[in-house]
């Protein structure tokens, strides 16, 4: 086990009925870094992300965060921020109530919550939108609110499920570099899922390539480009 790996998955197996979603998966994500889970649709990358977050449970194997095995810990107690593919913003709450939701759960005072929400909104460059409802926001704005909500509780790990899938191509490029900058600024260990290899190359410090539930290669973008470990990686990187 690599000492620098804040999040570490060890020999994870997961099946849904007859379908094997994860097959002996082992990899780690370094502290404070951006790790991408990259692979085609149906490869099992989202399942892995969800298992880290506690939304699904591995059949066997260990999920280790900061040296502790957290398999038995329920999702609500893992202290992990999750940004969903379609944001899952609470439709009947304002931006302020959405972002402050986790803080309210922790019974923080009203003033504290108000202050935190203001800070978070300025981090994601959405100042002044406290009282808006999700249906009044654009896709990019919703994404940033979802992001602010996920980091409001100061989680140790941030998980993002295809964060740019629902965004138009033009806005996507800006948001990619924005994400990288923010994560580095906040300093949070982040793992994101994507099927877009260009995105992974641009944004991630480490890439975990997955296909049909198995790991094909783990490495930095340069390593993967220059030394693809399998034929699949070669085809995936160069043909997509």
């Amino acid at each position, binding site marked *: 086990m690599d000492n620098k790996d804040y999040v570490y998955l060890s020999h994870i197996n997961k099946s849904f009925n007859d379908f094997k979603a994860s097959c002996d998966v082992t990899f780690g994500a370094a502290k404070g870094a951006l790790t991408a889970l990259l692979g085609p649709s149906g490869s099992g990358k989202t399942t892995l992300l969800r298992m880290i977050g506690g939304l699904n449970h591995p059949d066997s194997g260990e999920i280790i965060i900061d040296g502790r095995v957290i398999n038995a810990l329920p999702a609500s107690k893992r202290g992990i921020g999750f940004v969903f593919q379609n944001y899952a913003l609470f439709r009947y709450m304002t931006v302020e109530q959405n972002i402050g939701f986790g803080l309210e759960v922790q019974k923080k005072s009203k003033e504290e919550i108000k202050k935190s929400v203001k800070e978070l909104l300025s981090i994601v460059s959405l100042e002044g939108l406290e009282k808006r409802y999700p*249906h009044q926001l654009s896709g990019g704005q919703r994404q940033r609110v979802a992001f602010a909500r996920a980091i409001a509780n100061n989680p140790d790990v941030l998980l993002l499920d295809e964060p740019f899938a629902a965004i138009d191509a033009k806005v996507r490029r800006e948001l990619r570099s924005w994400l990288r900058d923010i994560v580095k600024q906040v300093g949070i260990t982040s793992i994101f899922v994507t099927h877009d290899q260009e995105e992974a190359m641009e944004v991630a410090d480490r890439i975990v390539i997955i296909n049909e539930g198995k790991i094909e290669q783990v490495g930095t973008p340069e390593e993967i480009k220059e030394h693809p470990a399998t034929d699949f990686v070669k085809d995936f990187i160069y043909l997509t």
Partner: protein
Amino acid sequence: MSDVRQELKKIIKNDSPGVIPGFGLLLGITLTMLTLIVLIPLASLVIETAQIGSLSDFISIVTDKYMMAGYGVSLFCSFIAAVVNTVAGVIIAWVLVRYDFKWKSFLNGIIELPFAIPTAVAGIALTSLYCDTGWIGSLFTKIGIDIAYTKTGIIIAMIFVGIPFVVRSVQPVIEKFDVEYEEAALSLGASPASTFFKVILPELFPSILAGFGLAFARGIGEYGSVVFIAGNIPLKTQIAPLLIMAQLQQYNYAKATAIALVLLVISFALMLAINGLQLYMQRFTAGSDNMSGISKKIEPFDDTGKRPAREHTLIAVASLFLFVMLIIPLLVVATYALRDGAAAYAEAIFDEYTLHALKITLIATVFAVVINTVFGVIAAVLLTKYTFPGRGIIATLIDLPFSISPVIAGLIFILTFGTIGWAGPFFERIGIKIVFAVPGIVLATVFVTFPFVFREIFPVLNAQGRHEEEAAALMGAGGFTIFRKITFPHMKWAFAYGIVLCAARAMGEFGAVSVISGHLRGKTNTLPLHVEILYNEFNTSEAFAVSSILVIMALIILIVRNVLEYRIKANEQMIEEERLAADKE
């Protein structure tokens, strides 16, 4: 290809209602039937009201202390019943969608029992159950609480009739509920309980409100199930529909009409308020409906496979509630029917008055089913396959009989065809007796069940869209061919289901028929009316014996309904799977 596009452009520019042939015919039939069956009789209410004279006369009629007490009783009891049904309904719907347990399909199948059982049968069953010698009533009398002939009894009867409304309103929403909202709340540290109250409940609120409104409105207008258990003690347990009935029996048509009008205004105001609130809440869901498209289930946190205590409790509460409210009354019918032995049971069933009443019930049912099915199909096709102004109004008008108290439904036919009705003399002259005769019973039954088939077919056709029919029309197919080959296959299960519901309601219709029939044994009695007479004459076991015929028919209808629903769901799932598979390619 460009010819087709030009054709379409021409048509659209001309503001034509659509490409599919048959619009004029469908519109004509729909409007005619709507006018004859719904609008003209309703207009009689207005005509009669106008004859009351001055506004002060009207006000003095509707505000006398018995009336005020009547509205009070109806509104109060109905409100409480609707609240109970809302809480119970949400729990039941949740349990049926989210949890798995052995008797789940059974519970799901009996929810519609209050629709399938005639209100009069429910009425006498509940009365026998909760009176001081009844199975449940006797338990409470021992500790000094009376249920029958008090407001509590009324509330229980209203709960009974309202059970399906909230459950069926909320259930589909929970089924389609995007699990991601819950997962988001959990990832932010919320407990399952606070996730439910803060995140899930607001999402369910519009449907809960709709169910509440329907249950409330239904309770206000309910007659058959409530009138027996209420005991009709003046100023204490007289419900508004009973007051109307009492005035009718004394031929005080003006007073009856006045009360009916007030009741209608209250119901419409209620529905308007609820619809308005729902429309307002639709804003919040703009642009984000069912985002992932697939409904997933949350994986249980505890991988040991044990069910948390919370689940056990909810399942127990839901099951107990349904058992007490639905199953026990059924057992009452069965038990009391056979109390005097099998011979007496057979005698009651094959009694000549019973058989005659059965005949009339079946006649009215067949007419209602045939007429309303034809109408339902035509109107549903008209409103979903064509675009023209006024669609919304027509849809609202079609739904009117659904929200009107059955007693008022009977009243308007008396006001139209009775001796004091404006059309009465005409029919007298040509020798057709309508009021206090079988034709009247048929008309009232048709009116009350008017929207049933339409309500089942409309959403299915609406969801289907009209592209297939338009494509066929552009290829030159005629209207009937399009219907036969394209439209009908899509709606056939909803079609069957609508017929079944319509038949059930028609057979059980009590309030409207009670007003218009004259209660002549052997001549103008339907089966539910016959039950009432037997019960009021203290021929209790005969009353229950005859009731059992209706209950058996109701149970058959429920079974058929469940089979059909299973088919509809399987069909939907197949289509969904095909679509997903096609997308993946």
